[in-house]
């Protein structure tokens, strides 16, 4: 949402707006002026990552969760998927199911807090979808976020790729 504000109409507003552009803080400028989070009304899609190699794709307050390509490669062939039941309330970084591969059950963690509203039913019969398409058809569950600000704690894509390079497994 861009526009021009006449200095005559809002003389005290312009310096805040200019500095906000420099700091990339549109949300805080509009929040302080209109009393609401800019992000809540944004139609921008956001994709963030966790250190435990989960991803979340958020549109408004609805998120889709899965594991990354890096994670599926590290796990090996997934043979069993355990996801929370629909209606379960999860906390950020709390356990959110598990994946089994090569006789190892690895816990998955919720990237954000919220309520699970849908699970990927295809994974029961086709757990291998997670290996074939971890960031598309192999999505695990969908969540209604309760605290959008928690997204600030997660990594952007370039930060996540750097994290993977530093992890560098065998």
């Amino acid at each position: 949402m861009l526009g021009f504000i006449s200095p005559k109409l809002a003389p005290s507003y312009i310096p805040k707006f200019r500095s906000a552009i420099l700091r990339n803080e549109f949300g805080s400028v509009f929040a302080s002026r209109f009393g609401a989070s800019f992000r809540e009304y944004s139609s921008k899609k956001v994709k963030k990552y966790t250190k435990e190699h989960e991803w979340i794709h958020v549109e408004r307050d609805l998120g889709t969760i899965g594991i990354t390509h890096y994670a599926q490669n590290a796990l090996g062939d997934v043979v069993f998927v355990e996801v929370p039941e629909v209606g379960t309330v999860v906390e950020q970084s709390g356990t959110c199911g598990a994946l089994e591969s090569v006789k190892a059950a690895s816990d998955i963690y919720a990237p954000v807090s919220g309520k699970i509203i849908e699970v990927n039913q295809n994974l029961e019969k086709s757990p291998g979808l997670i290996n074939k398409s971890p960031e598309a058809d192999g999505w695990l569950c969908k969540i209604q976020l309760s605290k959008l600000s928690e997204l600030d704690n997660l990594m952007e894509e370039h930060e996540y790729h750097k994290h993977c390079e530093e992890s560098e497994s065998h």
Partner: protein
Amino acid sequence: MSLFFSTFRNTLTDVSIPLLPYVYLSQVSYAKALDLQKLLVRRRLENKNSSDLLLLLQHPPTYTTGRRNMGKTMNEEAAYLKNLGAQYFETLRGGQTTFHGPGQLVGYPILDLRNFKLSVRCYVATIERVIINTCAAYGVATSATKNTGVWAGDDKICAIGIQVQRFVTSHGFALNCNTDLNWFDHITPCGLKDKKMTSLTKEFNKQGRKTTITVEQIIPTLCQHFGYVF
């Protein structure tokens, strides 16, 4: 309960690395070992300065099943197995139903995989390699196959089932030394109907060697090979 505590290090490199301690607890009930693992994992997660650890022990006759069967195991099966004189537990590890008992070396490495830069897949393969090398030291040829675990020909000599929580491992491996293999007849071990179980002592007998190997005898060799790769 006898307690041994020692340390070992990788002797193949000159690089100074933290020592990985192991502790042998002799025979411990499955419930107590489960509680101990939970405590050690929590300690490992909460305190980054705490050490990785290899727990070694034996269990009294116990059947366990893995995460896939949580809450789904028929009550009849659990009752049947308990009637045999064994205990029965559902666990959060990977893998399916197996048996633990006297004569079987059970190992629970409590490790932070990031310390070793190992993926889950590579960690399991490394455990298999340790067991294979240990068996080779006693003249028993074994291998890893597409079915996780360690095999002497078509027979399974060591089962593996792991849990990973925030990169920290628990549960582990179960190597049959001189286990009474009849206990396995009452289950489908690891969900594989056409496969049988074996032990190091049974493999010795197949080779015409009339020797038995106990858990206590194998521990130093296993720890040595564990230290070569971890």
